């Protein structure tokens, strides 16, 4: 502890260099914190998928529809506990650029299948009772300022009504939250019947179905039953576990994990070079001072620890500030009127960041610390 003052004074002796080095580290950790939160949010879509939930799609492509008649047949399959069907609506509110996830669903069974969504009994009943009612996730409701009781127009960039209008009137009857903080609450659900009766593209088709089985161990059996049932029909199905479906959906964007990891690694590599170079220069400038300290009786190992502590402290300051800033950035992103998954800066991101701090501090400090350790007193004093 007695040496901490010396470490601190050495660290702060050149204010501009300290600021620039900390700033560079700060930027790297801000990128790390934000991108890791994004990665976790995308991963959470997979992790939060229910093990006992299956998705039934048109075998050709998930953009191809299925007949509504399939719904009752799937519901009747053995070990199917609940089933709802969903149609992508392509909805936007006021601004065509602010498109969001909006589905026409079988409202009566929807909450049975997606039971991780939290809605009060009264709101749930109000939804079932009101054919123009919709339920919106908390995040999207906050973004658009919707409240229960509001009547709002929502346009579709795919469908139109039979009178040519592209906007539908809805009553906001419920705002749902999620059991898990990372549950996506950026989606909107409304009645299939309202959609089916008013849209002009022909009726009685559904986009896909979501099925809850009585036990995950029976998934394979249910998958086989469903796909066999529609084999050789004009619209064959492909049934997959929800986890696999979500994973494949996210991977359409590209290997997000690889992209995010590459960006983070590139940022850290640059920081490694900047901070490492700064530390080496800093210690080289202090050669004579290190020689004097050794002359006074400071052991080489003690000076080694002080140099390493300086490097760790530098990484810690930049790292903590960077992750704190990424927390603020994430709050801004979550509150922005854009449709993104809920970003969370949880303890695992902090733990990872601290491991990077230690790694960065150690790697950038070890070379100058070893130089200080090996420095011969006479050589050092001759440079004074």
């Amino acid at each position, binding site marked *: 502890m*007695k040496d901490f003052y010396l470490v601190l*004074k050495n660290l702060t002796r050149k204010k501009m260099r300290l600021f620039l080095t900390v700033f560079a580290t700060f930027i790297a950790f801000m990128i790390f914190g934000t991108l890791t939160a994004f990665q976790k949010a995308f991963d959470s879509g997979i992790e939060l998928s229910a093990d006992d939930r299956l998705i039934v799609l048109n075998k050709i492509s998930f953009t191809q529809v299925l007949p509504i008649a399939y719904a009752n047949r799937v519901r009747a399959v053995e070990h199917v506990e609940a089933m709802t069907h969903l149609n992508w609506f392509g909805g936007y509110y006021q601004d065509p650029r602010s498109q969001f996830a909006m589905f026409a669903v079988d409202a009566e069974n929807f909450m049975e299948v997606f039971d991780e969504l939290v809605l009060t009994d009264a709101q749930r009943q109000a939804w079932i009772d009101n054919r123009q009612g919709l339920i919106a996730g908390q995040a999207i409701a906050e973004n658009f300022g919707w409240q229960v009781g509001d009547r709002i127009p929502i346009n579709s960039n795919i469908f139109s009504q039979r009178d040519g209008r592209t906007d539908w009137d809805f009553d906001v009857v419920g705002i749902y939250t999620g059991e898990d903080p990372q549950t996506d609450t950026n989606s909107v659900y409304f009645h299939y019947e309202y959609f089916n009766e008013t849209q002009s593209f022909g009726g009685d088709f559904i986009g896909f179905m979501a099925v809850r089985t009585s036990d995950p161990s029976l998934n394979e059996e249910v998958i086989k039953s469903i796909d066999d049932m529609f084999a050789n029909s004009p619209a064959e199905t492909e049934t997959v576990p929800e986890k696999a479906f979500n994973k494949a959906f996210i991977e359409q964007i590209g290997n997000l994990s690889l992209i995010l990891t590459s960006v983070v690694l590139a940022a850290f590599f640059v920081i490694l070079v900047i901070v490492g170079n700064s530390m080496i220069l800093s210690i080289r400038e202090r050669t004579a001072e290190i020689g*004097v300290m050794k002359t006074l009786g400071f052991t080489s190992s003690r000076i080694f620890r002080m140099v390493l502590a300086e490097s760790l402290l530098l990484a810690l300051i930049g790292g903590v500030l960077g992750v704190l800033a990424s927390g603020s950035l994430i709050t801004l992103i979550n509150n922005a009127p854009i449709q993104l998954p809920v970003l969370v800066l949880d303890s695992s991101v902090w733990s990872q960041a601290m491991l990077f701090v230690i790694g960065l501090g150690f790697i950038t400090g070890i070379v100058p610390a070893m130089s200080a350790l090996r420095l011969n007193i006479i050589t050092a004093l001759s440079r*004074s």
Partner: protein
Amino acid sequence: MSDDILFDLKGVSKKFTKGKDTITVFDGLDMSIARGDFLAIMGPSGSGKTTLLNMLGGVDQPTGGEIWFDGSRIDSLSENQLAAWRANNIGFIFQFYNLMPMLNAERNVELPLLLTKLSRSQRKKNIAAALELVSLSDRARHMPAEMSGGQQQRVAIARALVSDPKLMLCDEPTGDLDRETADEILTMLQLLNREYDKTIVMVTHDPEAAKYAKRTLHLDKGVFVEKDLAA
């Protein structure tokens, strides 16, 4: 060995290897330094003054022979043992002061005390006493860059004596100072020797500086001749 002898060098040799050449600085040097002595070592460049001072201070090891300090042999100590020995027994004063530029005067003086187990309050008392002794109490919070060369050297003297060492080693302590300031510093060293019984070994090129010492050794090519200038 007499109790009055603080340092005893017996047959000390020091050789450097430079490429294929071996340079012999000392070959069988014998020397004794008594407690309370104030010894000036003079000689031309390359005569071995600084090498001798480094060996006395335990920052360089002889190639052969023995170095005894206060009844203990130090030439065979490990690097860490020597560091502890230096911290306990030696105060160093350098030509260019070698203060830490990022520390104020009192923090510079505190450095050797960080190697002790003294509490912060005890350290503060010792620092205050050392600065008082070099008449710099009013500059305790000043940074080295805010002080003159003479003041910086006085801070360096305070740093050298704050842990109450038995021996003070001075390497050209006035080499970077004007005559008047140099005399002040040398008078201070003389005071420490006479009043506080500090044993001092000073390497210098300056015959005027050597006059402050009790005796002077002239070193030439690793061999010295004792000549009593103070008498």
